């Protein structure tokens, strides 16, 4: 039996703040364990990793490379397959700029799910435009389901890349990545998976997913902002050109020659975010300490409570499945007659913090036929009281906007 009151107390902003924070999909709050790990790094372990030959630099290197080993084990990859970036956006840009640059030529095709975050859409559109490749959008049904058949219908011998999130930041539904990735492979394409919304909330194993690249952000799982991860299959990473050029990404440089470092350092130019990596390692420990089964169970329980409350309020409509099991703690909704930014502003008056807008997925909103939506998203530190506060505020919304 997990004591969720105790877990809540591990998050200073949540424990001390008088508000219901329901915007975890945008960024998660940080537990003491992470804050302490970052502080410890800078108080006791800081030097420029990978560089100095003195004890402190060796220690800093151990912290940084230790975080890499932990991250690799966390998602079931090899240590040298883990590249630290700033966030999932940078990870996806890295793949587009390097892998995309290398394999794409005129007439090739990239398939992107229509519900993708702009981070897993615009890098592909950029590189497609540069290389004369075409972007095709994979559409979901009204429940947000991407069927293997719909992907099969789009795949051609020119498909080089399929890009898709494991969990959409709007729908919260878990896509059947193993089946879709296998299909992409059968057509000779690689599968790039955005794990920004899945990795923080469920056990993810890259081998079980069967993907070629997985990107995620540390800050959505309690780590500091500014540390993200790209995992890629070793044989692909080795063949890719560097992403950025500069310090720490070379074996040697002469006036007219350069030999780049082996992976992963080839992709990590400049001084790295070792403090962030220390925080990420602590966040992984923290989440695994609770256990992803417990995290999923708790978040689904609160999600069910919120969805039940929403259904009792007229004029409020949830996007996607009716089953809380298929939401990953993400509830995107709209209210008849009230613009989402007004929803968010009125709820903020009551200390309920939710996101409103297009959630960096404008083409998907267009596809769904709505301009924008509101989104409440749940984290492990939320409580029944937070949900109650949210539902209370939401139930008064239309009246307060002069509609009832």
């Amino acid at each position: 039996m997990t004591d969720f009151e105790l877990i809540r107390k591990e998050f200073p902003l949540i424990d001390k703040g008088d508000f219901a924070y329901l915007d975890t999909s945008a960024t998660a709050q940080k537990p003491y364990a992470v804050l302490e790990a970052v502080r410890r790094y800078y108080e006791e372990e800081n030097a420029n990793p990978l560089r100095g030959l003195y004890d402190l630099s060796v220690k800093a290197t151990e912290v940084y490379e230790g975080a890499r080993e932990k991250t690799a084990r966390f998602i079931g990859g090899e240590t040298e397959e883990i590249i630290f970036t700033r966030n999932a956006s940078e990870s996806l840009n890295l793949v587009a700029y390097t892998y995309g640059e290398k394999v794409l030529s005129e007439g090739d095709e990239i398939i992107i799910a229509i519900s993708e975050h702009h981070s897993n859409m615009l890098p592909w559109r950029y590189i497609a435009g540069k290389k004369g490749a075409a972007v095709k959008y994979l559409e979901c049904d009204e429940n947000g389901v991407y069927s293997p058949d719909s992907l099969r219908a789009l795949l051609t011998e020119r498909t080089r890349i399929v890009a898709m999130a494991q969990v959409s930041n709007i729908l919260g539904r878990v896509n059947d990545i193993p089946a879709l990735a296998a299909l992409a492979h059968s057509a000779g394409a690689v599968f790039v998976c955005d794990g920004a919304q899945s990795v923080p909330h469920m056990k993810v194993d890259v081998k079980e997913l069967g993907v070629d690249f997985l990107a995620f952000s540390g800050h959505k799982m309690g780590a500091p902002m500014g540390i993200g991860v790209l995992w890629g299959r070793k044989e692909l990473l080795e063949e890719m050109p560097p992403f950025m050029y500069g310090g720490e990404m070379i074996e040697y440089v002469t006036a007219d020659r350069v030999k780049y470092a082996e992976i992963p350092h080839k992709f990590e130019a400049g001084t790295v975010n070792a403090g962030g990596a220390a925080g990420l390692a602590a966040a992984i420990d923290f989440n695994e300490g609770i256990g992803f089964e417990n995290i999923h169970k708790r978040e689904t329980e609160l999600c069910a409570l919120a969805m039940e409350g929403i259904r009792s309020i007229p004029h409020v409509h949830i996007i996607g499945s009716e089953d809380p099991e298929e939401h990953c703690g993400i509830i995107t909704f709209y209210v008849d007659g009230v613009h989402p930014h007004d929803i968010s502003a009125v709820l903020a008056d009551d200390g309920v913090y939710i996101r409103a807008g297009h959630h960096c997925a404008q083409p998907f909103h267009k596809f769904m036929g709505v301009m924008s939506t509101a989104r409440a998203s749940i984290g492990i530190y939320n409580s029944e009281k937070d949900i109650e506060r949210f539902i209370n505020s939401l139930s008064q919304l239309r009246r307060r906007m002069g509609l009832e």
Partner: protein
Amino acid sequence: MNGTFYNEVLTEHNVRPYHKHHLEGANFSLEGVNPSCGDDIILSLVIEDGMVKDGAFEGDGCAISQASADIMLDLIIGQTVEEAKRLADIFFRMIKGEATDEEIEELDEGSALRDVSHMPARVKCAVLGWHTFETIVMGKKRDDTIETK
């Protein structure tokens, strides 16, 4: 932000706008877009002899953008273009927190939006109607969109 921001003036102008309709015979018409909220209005005006003789708007958006456009039309219809521009200037300065109380009083129901000066995310909503008006009468052009290809 306090709990009274969505006051009755604002919700009334949003739910029952007086000037939200198509305007026959308009000699100026311009679309104004605020990409952050997805607010999208078309402002139509009848301007003759230096006077704003009539005006209306159509479109969709958040309560702040819609109410602000409706309140603006209340204020500028029947005024000279010069006077309307002066009011626009006061409105912009109010939103920046730079207008005096006496000036804000001149904006009548427009003063219901003064707290937007503490809400940076909503400034674009509040000024959308006024910006569109200014673009019509001053010929200024704003372009926020970039094509990706």
